[in-house]
């Protein structure tokens, strides 16, 4: 979590290459600065790490299995392993980050927590750790997402969180993030904002990536056990803000033997006007505190994204990924709603695993890329599909 230093770590000035930084109004400066000054010291502290890893083990259920999916491997013609983040408590990788951040918030003496959520996975993961720690929790969620991820809304409420609807813009993740930032501006002293992905002002992208890096930390020894080498040939992850991808890539950034592949959501097609494929459509810009690739008009207004998957329905990506894109270290692909939904059904039928629609985007690219028979490919199965049942039912096709 703290001992790796790669070319892809954030620089002391908060930038990854040309991207990142801390573009926030003065009202947020004291909060973000407090975090920046303290996070590395807290993360490096032995007792913090002990609490973090203990909760990941006993509460989240880590390590998550690295499962060789034989029937899928046969279909694709490669050795496909699934990193089973879907088996984590609350059903997605998001909880790795919320466990870390709530422990950190307590050390900073904060008593209230706010969060934004798209698919509701991060909201549920936040509501969960708040229940665990007895902290007050408010989650902002776009009203469109509230209607398409209803089970997660109810889960948050059962866990004792207040869910507030964001009604601006497309009423999705970007708008929920705006509202959470406004809440933080209005409550600067006792509140910590648990951002759900590797986005936001420095140090959030770095901090969240470090908490998620447990994914590739486990992959190393798990591959050693099953493949007798601690690295795969290829890692595939879906890309919303980029936290599950950051975690799955983290320990391999400097390992040129490992190909890194991200998959964005192209919605109804990259050029359809209904897409969230940021690297295909975006230009450098500034949103939610960092300079990154951003879908926007020539006038610098942020374009409303679209994806069937609420967790990928965001007009930007984390600055780390903008840097991976610019440097060529990772390759960036995208798949449509339909391709993702088909991959969702395929995995369900072949392996008995219903993936989250976000994760199904990563699976869908397997059908489109060439692999060699012996190639060891790890797909980060970031979450399970329980929350998506309504979307899958409405889509039909099974």
């Amino acid at each position, binding site marked *: 979590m703290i001992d790796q230093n790669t070319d892809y770590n954030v620089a002391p000035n908060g930038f990854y290459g040309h991207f990142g930084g801390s573009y926030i109004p003065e009202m947020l400066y004291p909060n973000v600065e407090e975090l920046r000054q303290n996070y590395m010291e807290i993360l490096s502290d032995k007792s913090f790490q002990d609490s973090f890893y203990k909760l990941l083990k006993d509460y989240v259920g880590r390590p998550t299995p690295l499962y060789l999916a034989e029937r899928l491997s046969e279909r694709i013609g490669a050795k496909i392993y699934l990193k089973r983040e879907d088996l984590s408590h609350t059903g997605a990788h998001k909880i790795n980050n919320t466990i870390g951040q709530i422990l950190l918030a307590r050390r900073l003496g904060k008593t209230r927590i706010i969060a934004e959520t798209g698919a509701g996975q991060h909201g549920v993961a936040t509501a969960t750790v708040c229940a665990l720690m007895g902290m007050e929790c408010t989650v902002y969620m776009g009203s469109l997402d509230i209607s398409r991820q209803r089970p997660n809304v109810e889960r948050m409420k059962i866990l004792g969180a207040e869910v507030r609807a964001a009604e601006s813009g497309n009423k999705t993740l970007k708008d929920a993030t*705006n509202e959470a930032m406004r809440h933080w501006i209005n409550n600067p*002293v006792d509140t910590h904002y648990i951002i759900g992905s590797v986005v936001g002002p420095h140090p959030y992208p770095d901090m969240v990536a470090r908490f998620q890096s447990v994914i590739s930390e486990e992959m190393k020894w798990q591959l050693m056990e099953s493949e007798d080498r601690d690295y795969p040939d290829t890692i595939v992850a879906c890309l919303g803000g980029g936290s599950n991808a950051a975690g799955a890539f983290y320990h391999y950034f400097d390992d040129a033997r490992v190909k890194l592949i991200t998959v964005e959501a192209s919605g109804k097609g990259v050029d359809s006007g209904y897409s969230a494929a940021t690297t295909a459509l975006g230009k450098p810009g500034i949103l939610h*505190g960092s300079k990154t690739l951003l879908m926007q008009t020539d006038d*610098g207004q942020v374009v409303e994204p679209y994806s069937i998957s609420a967790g990928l329905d965001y007009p930007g990506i984390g600055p780390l990924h903008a840097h991976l894109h610019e440097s060529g270290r990772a390759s960036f692909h995208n798949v449509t709603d339909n391709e993702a939904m088909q991959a969702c059904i395929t995995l369900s039928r072949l392996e008995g695993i219903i993936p989250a629609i976000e994760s199904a985007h990563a699976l869908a690219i397997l059908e489109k890329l060439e692999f060699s028979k012996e190639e060891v490919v790890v797909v980060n199965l970031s979450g399970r599909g329980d929350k998506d049942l309504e979307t899958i039912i409405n889509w039909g096709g099974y």
Partner: protein
Amino acid sequence: MNKLLNAFEDRSEKLLSIYFSAGYPELDDTGKIMMALQAGGADMIEVGIPFSDPVADGPTIQNSNKIALDNGITLKKILAQVAEVQKKIRIPVILMGYLNPIYQYGMEKFCLYCQKAGVSGLIIPDLPVQEYKNEYESLFQKHHLANIFLITPQTSEARIREIDRLSNSFIYMVSSASTTGARKGLSTDQIDYFKRVGGMNLKSPLMIGFGISDHQSFTLATKYADGAIIGSAFINVLKNSDNLEENIVAYVRSVKGN
């Protein structure tokens, strides 16, 4: 910039600066509103550059931003609208907006056209102090644009002093930890904060903004500062107006108490 410096020469007179979103209520109202503000006796004008994601703004300005964008406002049009009335506007004009539209337009080109349009200063809330210092300070100076920084009740004394050093005009003192929006009254905590900053002997004049709405709050705030800034309350005047010119003049007069 000179206009902006001159404005603070007589520091016994309390200044009123008024913010509105360009392109609101109608696309081409910008110049008309500026003229009426001047006619009513406003001392400065802040022309807002609408942005799709105004995170530091409350519902009123979010809404005026959105309507202005739906009306088709762009940064390019704003610069043209301001340039068009510049000969008739004697009071300082400040442009205020989030960084991204400016970044897309190009900072150099933006500064050049601001100067050509007679703009004296810029408020870019999400432009970090450090980045201004490293990348833009000399550019702003070349085009005689004052960069106006915000401070809040949470801003540390050391940082206020640094901001004071970097400022070449006034400091925008945000009245409370909050997004923009019209509220009622000023609390004793706020007054204490005004007094604390006022007692720091800063070289820069202070203007208090956020939550100022009428003659009463203007008078109270300006006991502790060189002036005050009104935004959301003025947007509400525009929203409810049946005669922009008359309503604006009457409102500005009522705030100043003339």
